[in-house]
């Protein structure tokens, strides 16, 4: 213990040594820029415009800067979802229509078609008027009102 403290005391630098060490240390530690004048921000409008246009160019070309705002992403996502839903619905309708046509020989309309076109106002030609019987066959050949409605009528020449 005594030896180590004596040894340590022997290795202890003098005040002059420490003085020189700290002077050298701070001489290279102080940033040279500190001795220059204060660098205030430049406020030239021309430079600002140049900077803004260069940033725009970077944003246009660099994929790192090509980010979309969240609102834009949400809109794109919603549009894709709506598109997918409508495609699925159309496919579903088509497959239902094909199935019913193949099973009934294409002579009767399916409930899916009726459900798909509720907004279409069909012109009732039955003498019974609006009796909600439009889906029932009105003749012996099994033709329904919807099907007769789809026949194109052309004026006589």
């Amino acid at each position, binding site marked *: 213990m005594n030896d180590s403290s004596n040894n340590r005391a022997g*290795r202890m630098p003098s005040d002059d*040594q420490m003085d020189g060490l*700290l002077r050298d240390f*701070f001489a290279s530690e102080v940033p040279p820029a*500190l*001795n220059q004048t*204060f660098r205030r921000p430049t406020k030239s409008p021309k430079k600002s415009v140049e900077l803004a246009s260069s940033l725009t160019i970077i944003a246009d070309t660099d994929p790192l800067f090509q980010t979309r705002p969240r609102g834009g992403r949400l809109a794109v996502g919603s549009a894709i979802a709506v598109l997918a839903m409508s495609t699925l619905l159309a496919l579903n309708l088509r497959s239902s229509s094909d199935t019913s046509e193949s099973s009934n020989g294409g002579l009767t309309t399916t409930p899916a078609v009726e459900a798909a076109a509720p907004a279409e106002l069909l012109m009732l030609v039955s003498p019974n008027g609006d009796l909600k019987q439009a889906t029932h066959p009105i003749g012996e050949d099994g033709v329904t009102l919807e099907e007769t409605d789809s026949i194109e009528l052309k004026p006589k020449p």
Partner: protein
Amino acid sequence: MTSPASGHQNDPERDQLIDTYYREHSRELWALFYAMCSDAERAYDAVQEAFLRYYDYHGEPVRDLRAWLLRVGQNWLRDVARKKSSSCGLLPELDDFVGRRESPEDILRLRERQTQIRTALQELNEDDRKVLVMKYSMDWSAAQMATVMDCSAAAVDMRLSRARRRLAEILLEQGFEYE
């Protein structure tokens, strides 16, 4: 200490006064910030930040500009320290070796010594570090330091001697080799 006429941007007179103030006080502010963070570059950034904030300042006239700048710089340093809890030492860049007379080995050795001293300084308390920074980076007298530290010149001398001794002990513990 009163401030240059504040609150008027694009005022040549004010700009000149800021320049003068920067020349006269930036080194002192750097030393005080350095005593806080032991990072020369960050302390320099704090000086720049404080002066930039003052340059953009439009509020009430500043009564004591030195205290105002010190407070702004210290707050900025605290914010930076909070965001970046530990500073990472950057490796020396190869460009730093170009055009210098010393060999790369000498430069690296010098940098290693600088890092050791910096680390040892960080282990001192802030007042001890402050007194060493003011003495060796600004060459201030004990009387000048006493004004800043709000104590007597004799107390400053005593603190300086104690801080130097304590630093030497820390360096010895680190295995620092004196040349």
